[in-house]
């Protein structure tokens, strides 16, 4: 594990200089051939022209498109897709705003002071910081990206990424409202989620490789004009994270329409099968963490422990999160991080269910 720059020995100065040791791509200037994918469009047609043409075509063919969407299944898909996006937009905007502030206005030295020096201690501190920040998972991905960019050790940023959507006050209140007869559910959810976030942070310290995280260089963030850099960060994060959010919302809408609930009924009778089924369902449905407690409450044919698994896994691993993480941190990272988080979350939630429920 010689490549592991995160494991700073106490007393030794941490290599915070290059964003906590993460590769921020510093590619040499584009080779001339880098243009080729766009060449076929010709030099005269830019994205704005393509966009304008696309919009005109869509407006002309509005009627046939509407007719094609008339099937109840496609209509339900569209409704669910649009509503996931509408629901997520304020949280995305809030997350992007905060991440742009972190990227542009908060000096690097602030994080060195705010978080414990030793990365192993920074992990629980960052998880605890997640408790006070209300928001859902769509917002926390760009925030975590910004934190890493600003030199916060990835382990702490990842712990924050996992803890923030799962244990904030709004989510815990929603859980209490959804389970009026089982107040212990709130405690179990909070404790299990915090434990998972910290385990993942520490696992990253031991096993994580910084080269898995590939974040593109963002020269505009160092712009001399703060305002210019801030709005460039907002624009980039909304189109970037938002685009991946669209991908995830499409996947979640498909699952919502294609998987009828009655399939679940047959799984509910077997204790282990029901845990796995609800864990997978949490990944596929990609519900907002502020809403998932109500859905869990309605899955009353399942045991409390399996529903706790649903609540712990959902905010940490789901289709739209995997899509956004792959976009912000790179695919090599997301395809290792998401399955590991899934396994840890299921195990911890089952353990917490056995002790607390």
């Amino acid at each position, binding site marked *: 594990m010689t490549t592991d720059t995160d494991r700073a020995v106490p007393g030794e100065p941490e290599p915070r200089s290059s964003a906590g040791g993460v590769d921020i*791509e510093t*590619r040499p200037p*584009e080779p001339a051939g880098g243009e080729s994918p*766009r060449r076929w469009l010709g*030099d*005269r*047609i*830019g*994205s*704005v022209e393509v966009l304008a043409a696309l919009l005109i075509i*869509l*407006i002309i063919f509005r009627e046939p*498109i*509407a007719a094609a969407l008339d099937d*109840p*299944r496609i*209509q*339900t898909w*569209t*409704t*669910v897709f*649009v*509503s*996931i*996006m*509408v*629901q997520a*937009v*304020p949280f995305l*905007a809030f997350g992007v705003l905060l991440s742009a502030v972190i990227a542009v206005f908060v000096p690097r030295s602030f994080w060195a002071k705010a978080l414990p020096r030793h990365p192993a201690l920074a992990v629980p501190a960052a998880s605890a910081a997640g408790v006070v920040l209300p928001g859902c998972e769509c917002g926390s991905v760009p925030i975590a990206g910004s934190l890493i960019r600003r030199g916060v050790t990835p382990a702490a940023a990842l712990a924050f990424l996992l803890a923030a959507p799962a244990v904030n006050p709004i989510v815990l209140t929603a859980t209490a409202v959804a389970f009026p*007869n089982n107040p212990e559910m709130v405690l179990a959810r909070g404790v299990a989620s915090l434990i998972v976030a910290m385990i993942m942070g520490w696992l990253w310290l031991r096993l994580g490789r910084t080269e898995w995280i590939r974040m593109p*260089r963002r*020269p*505009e963030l160092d*712009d*001399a004009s703060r305002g*210019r850099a801030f709005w*460039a960060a*907002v*624009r*980039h994060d909304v*189109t970037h994270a*938002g*685009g991946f959010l*669209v*991908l995830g*919302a*499409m996947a979640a*809408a498909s699952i919502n329409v294609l998987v009828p*609930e*009655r399939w679940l009924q047959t799984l509910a009778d077997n204790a282990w099968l029901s845990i796995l089924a609800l864990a997978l369902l949490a990944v596929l*449905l990609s*519900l*907002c963490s*502020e809403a998932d*407690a109500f*859905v869990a409450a*309605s899955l*009353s*044919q399942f045991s409390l422990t399996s529903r706790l698994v649903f609540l712990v896994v959902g905010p940490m691993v789901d289709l739209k999160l995997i899509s956004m993480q792959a976009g912000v941190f790179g695919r090599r990272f997301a395809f290792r991080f998401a399955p590991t988080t899934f396994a840890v979350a299921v195990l911890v939630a089952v353990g917490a269910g056995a002790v607390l429920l």
Partner: protein
Amino acid sequence: MNRQAQAVILLLLGGAVIRASVTDLYLRYVKEGLRPFLIAAGLLLVAAAIMTLWYELRPPAPRALAPADGPTVGPDRPDGHDGHDGHGRAHHEPRVGWLLILPVLGLLLVAPPALGSYAAGQAGTALSSQQQSDYPPLPEGDPVQVSVLDYASRALFDRGTSIGDRRVQLTGFIATGADGQPILARMVLSCCAADGRPVKLGLTGDVPAGLPDDSWVEVTGRYSDRLGRDPVNDAEIPYLEVESWRQVPVPKRPYD
């Protein structure tokens, strides 16, 4: 996707969100309480679009970062660097931003209806665990207006005690029940339509006949002690003894 195109998409998305939240369109997709946040988020998107265009169309700052992204706009650019944000790999990434056109189209062109009978048939009735133990008396009025959710929980968990012999009036849409008979349903949301779950009511007496699924009706009737079962989640479905009904337009707030 270059910066100007991103700005146009942000403008469209922000505009679509603001339009949906100042009209009642947003009520088809999310809860009412989200409205101020939607408007704020829409304004932020519009501001980001305007500021992007402002910085793009202005002469570059003294320390310009990407000479290729100069002030010249669009096709006149001599070197064809259009679309490069001047940073390494990034020309691959904002391409995913094109997808943001889909929610814009969904909100501006399609504006799909609120969840209806298809979604109600897919999911089990939401009333499967007791939410509340004692029910206050019904408000004044004859017939008294109650929501489908309120009637169903009183009928199920209170066995109709708090309804008694009162006449109730409720509004919902028609769906087809397991036995092929029409049922009255209404969706409840906790956050957005993705977590929408139906509350289902069986109908006896003067059952609304000849209406297609998804027609909205206002039914007046009395408590019935008959119970059915939802095959989807094996939960109990209460019944309503219908005395009269009439078709109504889709309500402003389609969810309970």
